[in-house]
C-alpha cells in the first residue's frame, strides 16, 4: 500500500484529514482554535477545522465560528502540501492572507509536531 501526499484541498479536507485527526484527537484539541481555510480557484472551497470540539472535526463550508481564516489560491495551497518552507515566500508575496486573530496561526504550526516523536 503506497502512501502519497494529498493532491488537492478537497482530497485533504474531505477525505484524508477527517480520518487523520481521529488518530490524534487529544493533541489536536490542545491546539484549541477554529480555523477557516478559504481556498480560491478551481477545485477550491471553504472548510472549517474545529480543533475545539470533542472530537476535532472538519466541516465543509464556513460554520461561522472561525477565529482565524487563511485565504489562498488552490495552486499555492498545493505547494504547501509538500513544502512547508513555501509558506514564507507566499505570505510575503501577499498570496496568503489571514483574517481574524492572526496569532492563532502560530498554533496551526503545531500540526507539524504531532507526527514527529519528541
Amino acid at each position, binding site marked *: *500500500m503506497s*502512501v*502519497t*501526499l*494529498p493532491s488537492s484541498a478537497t482530497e*485533504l479536507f474531505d477525505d*484524508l*484529514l477527517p*480520518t*487523520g*485527526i*481521529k*488518530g*490524534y484527537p487529544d493533541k489536536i484539541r490542545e491546539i484549541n482554535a477554529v480555523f477557516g481555510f478559504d481556498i480560491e480557484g478551481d477545485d477550491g472551497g471553504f472548510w472549517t477545522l474545529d480543533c475545539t470540539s470533542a472530537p476535532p472535526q472538519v466541516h465543509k463550508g464556513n460554520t461561522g465560528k472561525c477565529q482565524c481564516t*487563511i485565504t489562498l489560491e488552490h495552486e499555492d*495551497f498545493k505547494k*504547501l*502540501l*509538500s*513544502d*512547508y*518552507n*513555501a*509558506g*514564507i515566500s*507566499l*505570505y*510575503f508575496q501577499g498570496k*496568503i492572507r*489571514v483574517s481574524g486573530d*492572526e*496569532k492563532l*496561526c*502560530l*498554533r*496551526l*504550526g*503545531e*500540526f*507539524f*509536531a*504531532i*507526527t514527529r*516523536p519528541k
Partner: protein
Amino acid sequence: MTPEEQNELDQLKQSLRLTTAELADARGKLKAMELNVYETKRNAEKTLSEAKALQTETEQSLAVAADQMTVAHAIGLGIFGMAELTRARMARASAAARIVYRENHLVEHLERFVSAQTVGNADGVKQVLGYLKEKIAGIRHDGEMNRQIAAEQYLAHGFSAFETFWQKLLQESPK
C-alpha cells in the same frame, strides 16, 4: 620730547592701533568660530536624534517582519503538517497491516520449524516459541506509530534471532 622720541612714540601708537584692529578682527573670527561650532553641534544632535528615530522605526519594522515571518512559517508548517498527519495515519495503517501479516507468517513458520525438528530439548524450544509469541503480541498492540514500525523491524530481527538461538540449541542438545 625730542623729534626722535616723538617719532618713536608715533610708531608705537601706530603699532598699538594695528594690534587693536587685529585683536578686534581675531575676536570677530573667534565669535564666528563659536557660532559655527554651535551650529555644527546642533546639527549633529539633530542628526543623532533622527538616526535614533530611524533605528527605532527599523527595529519595530524588523519586529513586525519577524512576527509575520513566524506566522507565515507556522501556516506553512500547519498545512504541511495536516498533510503529514494523513500520511502518518496511512503509514501506520500500512505498518499495522504489515505487522499482522508478518506476525502470522512468523508464528506459522516458527511452529513448522519447531515441529520439523526432533531433538531432546523440544520443551525448551517450545518455551522460547511461547515467549516470542507473547512478545510479538505485546508490541503489536502498542498504538504509537513509531513503535509499530519498530515492532515491524523487531519481528524481522526476532525471526533471525530465533534462528540463531535455534541453531545454538541444536549444537548444544544431546544426540
